[in-house]
Structures are given as structure tokens and as C-alpha cells.
């Protein structure tokens, strides 16, 4: 990416902007605080400051609150966003609501997004909330550079951002016969968002706190599968099974297995995780997608 002279690049969203103001105009990240990096190399995504503004097109969004932040949009004429109807917090009577077309509805339904989404057209104001404690993460999207996000993290996107899904290919089974169960620790499908001719904005709701890191080519890290929030498409991933030392191969309870189910991420690229995640089954794994295995 060519950075115009005098501009700085936001270390979180990687967009270039003039060096002014307390927060990034593209993603709202605070710029006037020290970058917080853990000893292990994770960069803490600073929560968007209360009342910070993010500009997109002729419109803007202001982030309000600390525990369950609200995204308060001021939409300009001919600009629009789409979202699930559950996310609406309030709106001005003048804003125009409509349903998205059914095109792409099958994709949405398969991946857990509503078949019929709602569009809000400017001019006017509308506010959305993720309705759970956590952070809002703003991802400005450049045209033609898709972003993979974990399912059910989507809050809203600008009208010029298209959506599709991708099989995660991450699964394992437990039990056998009629008790056989297939688990998708990362979800069965991941969401793919792409800005079309012009830059777009994607807002995610991240439960808990958010951390990100850049993986070098070939660099790996294992994370809780359901903690993954988003990743560059260049980052590869697969299942990683880890058995602690001393784990009995056979136990009195044959269905139980002491092991960790991880997601192994391989660079190059950017990955982000949330600090709130689900837990995996503790039953014996009877089959799985391609995985690396470590027995200590």
C-alpha cells in the first residue's frame, strides 16, 4: 500500500490517514495511548474510546458506551448499511428502513445470518447494539481485499460490502453409531466480506477483549478455536490435538478423553482473538478433519 506523504498508518486497521486527532478516523482506535503489547507478542486492540467518530463515505458512526457499546450512525443521503433486525437500538422516524433483497439469502441462512436482513438508508440517524458485553471492532475494507470473520460476530456493514461464506473445514466427531456427533469448534462456516468498488466498513461485536498479532510467513500459533475473531485470508488454519503427558490411553470411562482441541494458525497475516469463547467437548474423538497431533 502506498502511503501519501505526511500520512500515518493505523497499526490496528492498517489504513493511512493524516496524523491528527485522538483516534483513527477509519477504525476509531485510540491513537493517543501507548501501544499495549503483551510479552508474547499480542497487541491489545484498544477499546474504541467513548464518543469516538469513524468516517465512511459521507457518513459517520459514533461509538458510545463502555460495557455494551452502541454504534450510532449518521447516514448521509444515498448511503446505507445492513444488519440483523435484532441489532436495532433506536432510530429517527425519518430514516428509511427496507429489507435486503433475497439475493444471497441462501448463503446467509446457511451461515446463521438472517435470511432477510434490514437496510437503513440515509439521510438520518440509527443506532445498533451487539447486546452483549464486549467491544466493537471496526474493520475498514479496501476494495477487493476480503476479510474472514468468525460466524455470529457480524454487527453491520456498509451497503457496498458484499457477503459470502466459506466452509471452515474444521471438525471432529465423538461417539459412534446413533450417538455419533459432529463438532465444529470454529463454526461450520466462516463469513467473508468484500468491499466492492469503493472502501467499505465492517463492524464486528467482539465478546470480552480483543487481541491481534501479525504472523510471519510460516509462523504458527495455536488458539482456542471459538476465540478467533478475524484473520487475513493468507493465514492458513487447521485442527491441532494435544494430549498431555500421563494421559491414560484407556480409562474406566471409555468415552472421556483428556486432551486439548486447538486451532493452529499459520502465517503470514493478521489474526485477532476475543477473550470470551466457548468450550470444546471432552468426549473421545472418533474422527476429525486434518490435524496435527502432539502427545507430550
Amino acid at each position, binding site marked *: 500500500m502506498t502511503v501519501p506523504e505526511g500520512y500515518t498508518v493505523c497499526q490496528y486497521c492498517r489504513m493511512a490517514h493524516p496524523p491528527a486527532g485522538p483516534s483513527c478516523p477509519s477504525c476509531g482506535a485510540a491513537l493517543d495511548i501507548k501501544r499495549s503489547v503483551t510479552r508474547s507478542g499480542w497487541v491489545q486492540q484498544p477499546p474504541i474510546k467513548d464518543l469516538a467518530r469513524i468516517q465512511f463515505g459521507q457518513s459517520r458512526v459514533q461509538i458510545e458506551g463502555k460495557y455494551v457499546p452502541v454504534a450510532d450512525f449518521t447516514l448521509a443521503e444515498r448511503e446505507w448499511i445492513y444488519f440483523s433486525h435484532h441489532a436495532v437500538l*433506536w432510530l429517527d422516524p425519518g430514516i428509511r428502513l427496507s429489507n435486503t433483497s433475497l439475493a444471497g439469502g441462501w448463503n446467509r441462512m446457511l451461515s446463521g445470518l438472517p435470511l432477510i436482513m434490514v437496510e437503513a438508508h440515509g439521510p438520518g440517524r440509527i443506532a445498533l447494539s451487539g*447486546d452483549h458485553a464486549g467491544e466493537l471492532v471496526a474493520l475498514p475494507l479496501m476494495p477487493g481485499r476480503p476479510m474472514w470473520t468468525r460466524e455470529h460476530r457480524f454487527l453491520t456493514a456498509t451497503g457496498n460490502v458484499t457477503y459470502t461464506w466459506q466452509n471452515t473445514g474444521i471438525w471432529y466427531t465423538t461417539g459412534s453409531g446413533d450417538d455419533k456427533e459432529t463438532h465444529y469448534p470454529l463454526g461450520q462456516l466462516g463469513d467473508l466480506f468484500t468491499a466492492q468498488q469503493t472502501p467499505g466498513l465492517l463492524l464486528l461485536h467482539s465478546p470480552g477483549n480483543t487481541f491481534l498479532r501479525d504472523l510471519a510467513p510460516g509462523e504458527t500459533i495455536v488458539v482456542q478455536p471459538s476465540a478467533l475473531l478475524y484473520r487475513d485470508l493468507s493465514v492458513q488454519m487447521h485442527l491441532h490435538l494435544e494430549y498431555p503427558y500421563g494421559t491414560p490411553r484407556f480409562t474406566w470411562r471409555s468415552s472421556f478423553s483428556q486432551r486439548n482441541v486447538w486451532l493452529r494458525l499459520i502465517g503470514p497475516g493478521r489474526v485477532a482473538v476475543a477473550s470470551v469463547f466457548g468450550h470444546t467437548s471432552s468426549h473421545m474423538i472418533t474422527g476429525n478433519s486434518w490435524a496435527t497431533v502432539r502427545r507430550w
Partner: protein
Amino acid sequence: MERIECEWCRLQNEPGATSCLSCGAPLDVRNLVTDSGWREAPRLRDLTEFRFSRSTVQVEGELVPVTEVALGQGDAVYFEHHVLLWKDEATPITAMPTGGGMKRILGGMPFVLTLAHGPGRVAFSRDSPGELVVLPLHPGMELDAREHAFLLASHTIGYSFVRIQGLANVLHGGNGMYLDRFVTTSAPGLLALHGYGNVLERYLRPGEKILVEPGAFLYKDAAVTMQAVQMPVKTGLLRRGMYLAEMTGPGRVGIQSMYVHHHAE
């Protein structure tokens, strides 16, 4: 020296005070008002103290705040029993009948409230991340709150409930069948609500309207009217309607950013 007016409850505080004596709001930070005109409820600092009558209230914690009340002699607060966190063994409690028993049971509201009497200490928590909203009520005020939002009220505040008018409001409004109504007559009182998530307040001018997710409604002045209105969009495979609560001024409206999803019909 010039006294400091609290921007939240308008009490005139002593010069040099850092938090309001009546509601605990920080006095050394400006009101946070969004571009769209919503005012954020003041974030009470950990261990902030404020007073009502002969009692003192202290707020502890920020994520799931605890409200601890040191009740003075002759003072009392009432509450729903499941918000009790701890109490001094010697603090007396009594039952407070609410009237309208069967209606309240049908509406899913508590039939009997609990009164804690001073002197003694008692602490409350709504058991979920959010903010404590302290609303000192001056004499002659009426305020409506969504059911199960109120944490405690001082005994000088009259308590009743109002049935939400209109079948559409009941079926689509997302606020149940009743609102809690708090009324002061000649004496002031203290009302504390728990807002889930963050709380925002806005003053509507006479006739001014705003559309609010019904589950996000937290409180309003009694003069503000609330009406469920259908939006021109459909949801889900069955193409069910989407309803929002149309609030019409004059008066205050408070909303919370974490809400129970209302059932779209």
C-alpha cells in the same frame, strides 16, 4: 464561592465537591452527549458515596455494581427480594404488599416487595453487567420504569404499576403488560435502577418522537407516551413484522444498550 450544579440531577453542591451529594455523579467531568443528542448516564466512580434523608449509599465496583445502603433511623428502602446481595443480620426486613396481586402475578411481576428498615446496612446487585442509574425524585414527580429494572427506592416514594394501554403495545411492545410507576408527593426520594449494558438518556420536546427497540426502554417521565408501531420491514422466513416503541415527548427517556430481544410477531 460558587456552588457546583450537578448536570444529572441539578442539585447545588458545595464548592470543591467531586461527586454529587444527591446522586453520586462525578462533578469534575463534563456531560457526555452524543452527536445525536443522547446523554450518557454518569459513570459512578468506585466507592462513590451520596445521601438521601438520614441514609448513605455507596456504590462499589464498575462492571456489575453493588449498591450498599447504610440506612439511618426511620429510613427504609424497598426492593425485589432477589436483588439482595448481603445485609447485616440485625437489619430488619418486612414484606410490602403491592396490591393488584393477581394482575401482577399474571404480568410476571413480584407480588410482594421487601422493605429494609434502618438502622442497619444492606447491599443490592442486579447480577448482570451494567450501570447503576440514580434518579433522585423531587416532590411531585412521576416516573415509569420497565419491569424488573428497579433496584431500590426509598420509602418516601409511592409505588404502583400502570397497565400498558393498547393490545398492540402489550403484544408487540416487548415491555410486558405493566410498567412500574414511582410517584413522589410532598417529600423527595431516591430511586435506583439497574441498566443492562450502558445507559443513555434523552429529553424529548413536546411532540418530538423517537423510535426505540422496546427491550431497550428503561425509564421515562410519565408524560412521555409510548406506542408500539410496525416498521415497513419483515423478519425471518415467516416474514413476521418488526415493531418499535414510538416515544413522544415531553420528558426524559432512558434506554439501555443490552436488552432482552422482544418477540417479533
